[in-house]
């Protein structure tokens, strides 16, 4: 592992953020209804069953958005139509229904695929670079721009002044 990882992950993170914004606005933040879930909701006792189903679907979507699809390029298992991604979403739903927490489910996938499976790396150790570098770069860049602008404007009134008068 090395230096390029945070860069690549960072790029994917921002790409994902863009995609999430687009998807969010298109769907109005509604989880995509699953045909199986609707059937289970009716079976599982009217309104209550339907309500828990919606919650289950929303939590599944939340977790699936953070897990990388192993057979795709930089796509989450929520966004991918690949067979393996569909099965992984099913597994997330199953584990949620069995009472596991989001943390436990993420850990299940990390233990099998490595931290690679998480679309946003955990902010510990070397991964911190991915979080700190953009902020440091932004501050450094602003400083450079600020100082340059100050220097340019300080020199400005003396030289162009007379030429404008002429």
């Amino acid at each position: 592992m090395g230096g390029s990882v945070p860069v690549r992950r960072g790029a994917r993170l921002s790409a994902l953020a863009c995609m999430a914004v687009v998807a969010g606005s298109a769907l109005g933040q509604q989880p995509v209804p699953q045909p199986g879930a609707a059937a289970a909701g009716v079976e599982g006792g009217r309104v209550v069953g339907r309500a828990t189903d919606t919650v289950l679907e929303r939590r599944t979507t939340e977790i699936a958005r953070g897990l990388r699809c192993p057979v795709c390029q930089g796509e989450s298992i929520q966004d991918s139509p690949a067979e393996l991604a569909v099965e992984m979403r099913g597994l997330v739903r199953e584990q949620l229904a069995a009472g596991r927490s989001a943390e436990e489910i993420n850990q299940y996938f990390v233990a099998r695929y490595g931290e690679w499976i998480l679309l946003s790396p955990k902010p510990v150790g070397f991964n911190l670079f991915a979080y700190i570098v953009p902020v440091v770069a932004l501050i450094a860049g602003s400083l450079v721009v600020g100082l340059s602008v100050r220097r340019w404007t300080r020199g400005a009134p003396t030289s162009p002044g007379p030429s404008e008068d002429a």
Partner: protein
Amino acid sequence: MNWRRAFLAALSAVPVILLLAWGLTRDPREIVSPLPGRPAPDFALTVFAPGEPPLARPLGDTLALARLRGSVVVLNFWASWCLACRDEHRDLSAAAMAYAGQPVQFVGVLYNDIESAGSDWIREMGGQVYPSVTDPGARTAIAFGLYGVPETFVIDQSGRVAYKHTGPIPEALIRRKVDSLLIANRGAAD
């Protein structure tokens, strides 16, 4: 023009360019598996292709990892739609035959495929000497952190993942891995 400053500015971009250039040399699909050295995820899967004597298992029989303790298990994930699986097919069958009568179990796991397509493929390839099982819902594939086929896992006598191979596996490599586990076990028993 201040050449010294221009040079320093250009110099500061060099590390970034080098970092990006190094990134281009890496395969983003190459993922280090956390499984080797850890206990293999348990499975109990149904045989859909029995294999050939003396390695055959009855159709519909369950192959469970828990019941294979004491044997080296070579678990190969494959599919009829997978082209690279054709390259390794002969190697796997030859290696499996070479260990007939020894505590070594080869298992094929059909990934993301239908049984009939798997059986047709085996027939087309001229048979598969060891049994293959189905993996409903790809649960075992996910448990093994699979991200493509073919992938092969060598599991030691105590049920620990000893080795993971991505892509077609050559016979010589299978034999080297299996031999080392058999020898280590014999050494431990003595």
